[in-house]
């Protein structure tokens, strides 16, 4: 059953071809047999999963099943799950068993989904390679020497290895799209505010957004419909109706206006990746779309602006980890300041410390205008670039990342090189727009992702644009070898 998509499993469950319990057992067995190679799960909740599966089967027998009832899934370990450790990839939260469920967790649970466990990630979602996790790196199922991308690296790797048919991710600067691209799976970062951030461990509050990751755009459409919606406990949650994202999935792309930003095809883009993207664009032409070259002139400023805004917000958000109310506490503190400093010094890894320090510096007296205010002005310029582009085109396309997955260890000691690998995804978060990554081909044995960016709340169109591509191509059906 593990080769099936969420949509297929939904039909098989409805037709009585399989039970949720059998399906859940199959996935738990796969995780047990295979995940020692990938390290994509940090916690497996076997017994509770089987219990939830039996309950889902009972709901179905009682005639109360929805499209997601009984389908297994796994959460990125950034989403709080009641009674289950939520460590966010950090030693700081290694002992944190959440007393409550995140909004997204509640929603998927009430849709009847069965949680298999929690997925590995970069520490506090700060990383692009899943190498900053306290629980060790994740291997890319396509090539175990390669990183899976980050920060939702566990989610992407588990999907690629068919250890779960669906996963949640979060995206602050590319953390859904970049790992989806590198592991050959499909993921969507919705418009800022579309999915509740309540119970999602905060990294950069004006950029963070949760979303689904799966094998197909159709699956993402089903999952996003269940995840999205107003949550009064999140002060930035948007009060706006959630459409049925599956309804628009059959629409023709005849006349669709696609913009290709010339800045996304400039220096720094790998030739082989560029060829894959060109081929995907050619496919869209065959599907009836019109291609137009556009310009997003401030693209080169996205990395600098992001690495002020995100660390500044992170330094503020992560000040809550003080060794007093929850999380790691140092041994034998001499006084309160020593308690704070050593608890934080021991609990956080190097990348998190770097970002806290950059943020602290950018917000400190005398530097605020030069860094934080300047970055916010550039953020406006970047958002304005997109607004102008969307006057002329319906969606924007380009590569998700400038290259395929690199080898583990290759950029570990070079934060700046690591940051530049998110060059095409960061501006989408700064503007708050929705963006997707769709499998589009390979360079050698490593997957390449096509990024599709839409206007605010245009997730329905994005998903259909991705779905039409997946009707015409089979990249999304490819699976790594040795995962039987």
């Amino acid at each position, binding site marked *: 059953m593990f080769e099936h998509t969420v949509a297929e499993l939904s039909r098989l469950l409805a037709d009585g071809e399989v039970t949720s319990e059998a399906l859940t057992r199959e996935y738990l067995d796969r995780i047990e047999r295979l995940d020692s190679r990938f390290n994509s799960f940090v916690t497996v909740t076997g017994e509770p999963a089987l219990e939830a599966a039996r309950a889902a089967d009972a709901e179905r027998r009682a005639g109360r099943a929805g499209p997601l009832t009984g389908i297994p899934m796994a959460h990125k370990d950034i989403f709080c799950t009641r009674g289950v450790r939520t460590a966010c990839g950090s030693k700081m939260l290694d002992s*944190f068993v959440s007393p409550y469920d995140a909004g997204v967790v509640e929603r998927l649970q009430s849709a009847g989904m069965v949680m298999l466990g929690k997925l590995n990630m970069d520490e506090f979602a700060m990383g692009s390679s899943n190498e900053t996790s306290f629980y060790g790196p994740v291997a890319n199922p396509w090539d175990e020497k390669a990183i899976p991308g980050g920060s939702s690296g566990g989610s992407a790797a588990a999907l690629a290895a068919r250890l779960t048919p669906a996963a949640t991710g979060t995206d602050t600067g590319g953390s859904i799209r970049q790992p989806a691209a590198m592991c050959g799976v499909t993921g969507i970062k919705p418009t800022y505010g579309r999915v509740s951030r309540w119970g999602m461990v905060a990294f950069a509050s004006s950029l963070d957004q949760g979303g689904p990751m799966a094998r197909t755009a159709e699956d993402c459409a089903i999952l996003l419909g269940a995840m999205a919606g107003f949550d009064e406990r999140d002060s930035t949650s948007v009060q706006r109706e959630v459409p049925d994202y599956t309804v628009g999935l059959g629409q023709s792309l005849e006349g669709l206006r696609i913009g290709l930003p010339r800045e996304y095809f400039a220096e720094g883009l790998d030739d082989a990746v560029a060829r894959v993207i060109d081929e995907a664009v050619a496919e869209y032409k065959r599907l009836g779309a019109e291609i137009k070259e556009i310009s997003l002139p401030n693209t080169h*400023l996205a990395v600098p602006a992001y690495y002020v805004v995100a660390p500044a917000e992170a330094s503020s958000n992560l000040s809550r980890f003080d060794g007093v109310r929850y999380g790691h506490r140092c041994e034998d503190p001499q006084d309160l300041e020593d308690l704070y400093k050593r608890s934080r010094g021991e609990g956080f890894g190097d990348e998190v410390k770097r970002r806290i*320090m950059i943020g602290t510096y950018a917000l400190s007296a005398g530097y605020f205008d030069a860094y934080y205010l300047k970055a916010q002005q550039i953020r406006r310029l970047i958002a304005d670039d997109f607004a102008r582009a969307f006057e002329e085109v319906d969606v924007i396309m380009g590569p998700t990342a400038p290259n395929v997955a690199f080898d583990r260890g290759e950029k570990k000691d070079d934060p700046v090189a690591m940051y530049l690998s998110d060059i095409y995804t960061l501006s989408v978060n700064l503007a708050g727009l929705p963006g997707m990554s769709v499998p589009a081909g390979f360079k050698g044995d490593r997957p390449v992702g096509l990024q599709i960016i839409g206007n605010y709340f245009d997730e329905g169109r994005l998903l259909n644009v991705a779905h039409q591509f997946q009707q015409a191509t089979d990249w999304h059906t490819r699976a790594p070898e040795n995962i039987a």
Partner: protein
Amino acid sequence: MSLAPDEVRNIAHLARLAIGDEDVPAHADNLSRILELVDQMQQVDTKGVEPMAHPLEGGQRLRPDEVIEEDQREAFQKLAPQTEVGLYLVPKVIE
């Protein structure tokens, strides 16, 4: 933009992060390189550009001032490293 070791120590102090002396040079080097990257912003004239704090502009929602949460002090305090009679314990602050 290059940070001296003392500046790194001061930032770490402001952030309440204990950093080993042996780690200061590596942090100074990495933070300096990140600030160099960030400094590309200074080449852009942003005079008159309104800062954008948030993608969805609009005020904060208000709600009626009603009790909507139950007291869960015990559940929350179970997570704390050290508590006593409902209080969070820290080292002595006032002599």
